[in-house]
Structure formats: structure tokens, C-alpha cells
């Protein structure tokens, strides 16, 4: 469908794309990924001739695009950009109908097409056809951006970070929706992103670029199993490569409220008040975990005892930081614990897992962000 042969694009001394050779088959979903400035956008825009290569040739559907009229070529290729690019002076139906209009469809046919496309993404045509882009949410606008590229049913679609500006939840929804659409529509898609999770989720094939060159060109599977070099491995991130389950260390909170055993009762109470917690964890001066003291204990016993060390509950359950996060969550649920202190292999207190941050960690796993502890 698309074939790059020895394509180079320079800007003065900057080589944006360097001797690129790439073949994209029909119905393939290819994701171009790499750090900012590596030449993804340049590569994409050379396909619809918004940018012309300095040297080399590009074929689309068997024809050298240098021989084609750029305007005709562009009408046959869908194009979606990050900034959405909906025309604020046109209604939703008119926006979707831009390419059909340019191709000379009559207005009725074009409106019908817009209605059908809106229905396909669950937006009621009656409600939305005649609204203006500013009346829609960001996610809805980007849906329209995608539909607009589909309007004239082009076999090839170029997408430049189409979901990049959306919030994580909306992005996820649109990715799912788009993936579903793709299984029905069988388009050839070249999709630019710098989000590896997005790439792994959507791509049939991932092309990793660095400084204008392809570093690796592989299926998501292959990529995860055999990253070509350290750059690719770093790009993928070690969480994904190790393919291990999430560990407690990745989801715990790192600075639990703690105190030494000789802290006085009143001081302990003040500490809990100040930090707004019900419990303080007790360690010795070497940081070894000793147990916990709850606010109820302090209140009940402050007449008979002087220090926290005297009333510490030494049977407080704890979990090792290398344990699976799932185990921590199971124990919290099954033993109805409000929290679980986290210790390392030497018994030193390193963190805490609470009910609350369990929820946050789960949520961030859903969003593909494994920094559950933050």
C-alpha cells in the first residue's frame, strides 16, 4: 500500500529522516514511535506530500506519488492531526463532509454519510449534526476528527498523535473505539505516537525511530521479547519487559508516618493529629519495623503508660516489598486490614500500602501507568 525507498528529508543541516526504507501492506496498522524530533511527523507528511522528500521515492498504491497531483492524492488519503483541526466555522456535519464536498458529492449524500459515521461511534446524528465544534467536549471533537478522515472511505489513513491531547480516560476510550472500528473497516493506517502503551495496544507492527532512522520494526510481541538494543529496551520500559506482576514496591506509599518507641504519648497523639492518620508505625533507630500504635490505644492507655514503645502492637502484619501487589491487596481485603506496612528483606520499614492507594494503583494499572505509588 505504501512503500518508502531510500527516503531522506533534510532541513538545512538537520536530517529529519535518513534513508528510510519501509513497506506497509494493505490493511496493516503500523505505528511510528520514537522520542520527539525523531522524524515521525516528517515521515507521515511525506505520504500525502505536505512535505516532499529531499531524495528517494514513495509509492502509494503502486504509484510514485511524485507523479501525482498532491491535491487529488490528499483527497484519497485520510488525515487526522493532534490539534483536532475541526473548522470552527462549520457544523459537525459540514466538518465530516469536507472531503466529500471537495470530491463534489451532493449535500444529501454527504449528510447521510455523516449521520452514518456518527451513529458508528455512538453519537446521535439528530443531536450533533448541526452543532459546532466548540459545543463538543475534547473527546467528541477528536472522534469527529477521526470520522472526518473516514468520510470519503479512503483506503489509507494517516494519523499524527490523534489522541495525544486527551485526558487518560478519554484517550483509552477512543483507543478502544478506534481499535474496534479498525476491525470492521480494514483500513491501512499509519499512526504516529510517542506513547508506547498506545502503540502496543493498537499496532499490528511498531516502527521505532530515533534521529530519523528506524531502530526496530517488529510486531508488539517480538518487540517485547527481543528489543533490538538498549534504546528500544529503555523505550519499552522495564516493567513491560520483565512481564512480571506488579510488585508491592511499585504501588506502596513511600513515607509512612513513623515514630521511635521512646516518643511520649502526648507527642504521638499530636503527630497523628498533624498528619491526619489513625496509626503511627514504630521503628527502632536503625529503621527496623517494630509494630504499630493506633490512636485508640493511645487514648485508652495514656494514663498508665508514658511512651509509644510500651503499648506498641508487635503483631501488626507486614508484607515484603518484593511480594506481588495482588497479595497485598488480597490480604487487605480478606483480613480487613486498614493498611499493610511494607518491609524490605532486612526487616526495615520502607513504605505502606493503604486501602486508598490500592484503589489508585488499580486505576493507574487500568490507564497503563504503573507509577501507582505517586
Amino acid at each position, binding site marked *: 500500500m505504501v512503500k518508502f525507498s531510500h527516503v531522506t528529508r533534510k532541513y538545512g543541516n538537520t536530517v529529519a529522516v535518513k534513508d528510510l526504507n519501509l513497506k506497509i501492506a494493505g490493511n496493516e496498522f503500523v505505528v511510528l514511535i520514537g522520542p520527539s524530533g525523531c522524524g515521525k511527523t516528517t515521515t507521515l507528511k511525506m505520504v500525502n506530500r505536505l512535505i516532499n522528500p529531499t531524495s528517494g521515492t514513495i509509492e502509494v498504491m503502486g504509484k510514485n506519488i511524485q507523479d501525482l497531483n498532491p491535491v487529488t492524492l490528499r483527497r484519497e488519503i485520510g488525515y487526522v492531526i493532534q490539534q483536532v*483541526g475541526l473548522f470552527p466555522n462549520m457544523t459537525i456535519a459540514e466538518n465530516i463532509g469536507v472531503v466529500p464536498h471537495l470530491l463534489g458529492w451532493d449535500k444529501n449524500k454527504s449528510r447521510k454519510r455523516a449521520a452514518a459515521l456518527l451513529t458508528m461511534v455512538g453519537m446521535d446524528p439528530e443531536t450533533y449534526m448541526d452543532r459546532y465544534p466548540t459545543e463538543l467536549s475534547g473527546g467528541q471533537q477528536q472522534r469527529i476528527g477521526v470520522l472526518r478522515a473516514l468520510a470519503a472511505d479512503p483506503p489509507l489513513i494517516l494519523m499524527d498523535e490523534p489522541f495525544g491531547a486527551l485526558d487518560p480516560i478519554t484517550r483509552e476510550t477512543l483507543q478502544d473505539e478506534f481499535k474496534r472500528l479498525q476491525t470492521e473497516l480494514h483500513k491501512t493506517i499509519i499512526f504516529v505516537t510517542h506513547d508506547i502503551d498506545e502503540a502496543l495496544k493498537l499496532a499490528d507492527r511498531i516502527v521505532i525511530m530515533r534521529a530519523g532512522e528506524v531502530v526496530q520494526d517488529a510486531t508488539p510481541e517480538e518487540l517485547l521479547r527481543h528489543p533490538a538494543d538498549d534504546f528500544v529496551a529503555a523505550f519499552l520500559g522495564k516493567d513491560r519487559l520483565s512481564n512480571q506482576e506488579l510488585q508491592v514496591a511499585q504501588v506502596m506509599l513511600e513515607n509512612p508516618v513513623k515514630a521511635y518507641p521512646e516518643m511520649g504519648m502526648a507527642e504521638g497523639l499530636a503527630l497523628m493529629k498533624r498528619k491526619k492518620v489513625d496509626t503511627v508505625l514504630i521503628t527502632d533507630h536503625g529503621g527496623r519495623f517494630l509494630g504499630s500504635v493506633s490512636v485508640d490505644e493511645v487514648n485508652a492507655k495514656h494514663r498508665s503508660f508514658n511512651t509509644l514503645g510500651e503499648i506498641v502492637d508487635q503483631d501488626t502484619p507486614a508484607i515484603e516489598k518484593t511480594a506481588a501487589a495482588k497479595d497485598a491487596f488480597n490480604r487487605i481485603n480478606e483480613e480487613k486490614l486498614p493498611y499493610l506496612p511494607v518491609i524490605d528483606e532486612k526487616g526495615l520499614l520502607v513504605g505502606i500500602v493503604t486501602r486508598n492507594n490500592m484503589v489508585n494503583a488499580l486505576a493507574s494499572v487500568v490507564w497503563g501507568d504503573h507509577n501507582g505509588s505517586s
Partner: protein
Amino acid sequence: MEKIILLTLEHLGLSTIGVLFGIAVGLPLGIMITRRRKLAGLVVGTTEMLQTIPSLAMLALLMMWLGLGNSTLIIALFLYSLLPIVRNTYTGLVNVDTGLIEAGRGMGMTRLQVLRLVQLPLALPVILAGIRVALITAIGVATIGTLIGAGGLGELIWLGMKNIETSKGVNMLFSGAIPAALLAIACELGLERLEKALTPRGLRVSPESMKN
């Protein structure tokens, strides 16, 4: 009274014709210099220079060259209206989000289609504001047109000033000055409304109406 109405209409007519010429030349010129950015500075600079010439001096110079009469006034009004029209057309077009222009090009619009379907509709409010300024300026300048033998309300104002010691002169002055002022205000308000009416609906929607 009838005379005042006729003179007011003549005044408006002369100003409008001057501005229409300004639009006929200024709009294409403003569009053209967005394509040739190097010329933009020169063109805007020249129209700015024209604008700084005091109106009395401008009329005197044109009169020496073209003689007395309405057409000389119209040419002066035309020259004065160039700056706001050229400048606003240029700024209006240049300030259209480049992302939108690229989206249009990427979908296969020709340059002319980008201009017609995207840039001009979005720049329209700014261009209209320029035309409004041009017309108000023209109404003002036209009041001295009588000095070079052109028509309009200027005649009453100047005659009135000459005979300002007499109550007839005072009356005459007012009968020219007040309609001129009212005409300017009416044009200002009228064009402001037109601007609002012609602003693409999608640009007028308030953010509060956004629905999820």
C-alpha cells in the same frame, strides 16, 4: 430640512463609494500579501504613510493634480480606507490557526479553497472591523470635501462657521454637524451589528453551552 436629508445622503454616498473602492483594492491586496510576506511590510507601510497625511493636505494635493469635485474627494477617501482594510485583512488571515490551514491542505483543499472555506470565514469579523473603521474615517474626512468643491454635509458646516456671528450661521453649522455626527454613530452601530450577524456561528458559541 429636505436639503439636510439630501446632503446627508450625499455624504453617506460619497463615503461609501470611497470605502467600496477601498474594499475592491484593499481586500485583494491584503490577501495577496499573506502569500508574499516580504511585500507585507512594504504594503502596510505605504498605506500607513498615506494615513498620516493630514486630510486637508491630502485634499489640497489631490486637487492640484485632479482638480475640484466629488471624484477627487472619493479618491482621498479611498486612499484613507486602504490602511484599515489592508491591515485587518492581512492580520485576520494570518491569525487563522496554522493547524486549521494544514488540516485543510492535508485533506486536499487547494490554496483557493483553504482561503474560501477556512481563512476568509474565520477572518471575516476582523475584516469587517477594518471596513467599519474605514467608513467612520471617511465620514469624518468627507466633511472637509466641500473645500475642494465636493458635496455632503461639509458645505453647511463651513458656511455656518463663516457666518458664526449670526444666528443663521450657528443654525447652519448645527444643521451640518449634528447629522454628520449622527451618521457616523449610526454607521458604527449598524456595522457592528452586521459584524455580529456575519460572524460564523461556531465562533460565537459561548463555552458555557459546551456539553459532554
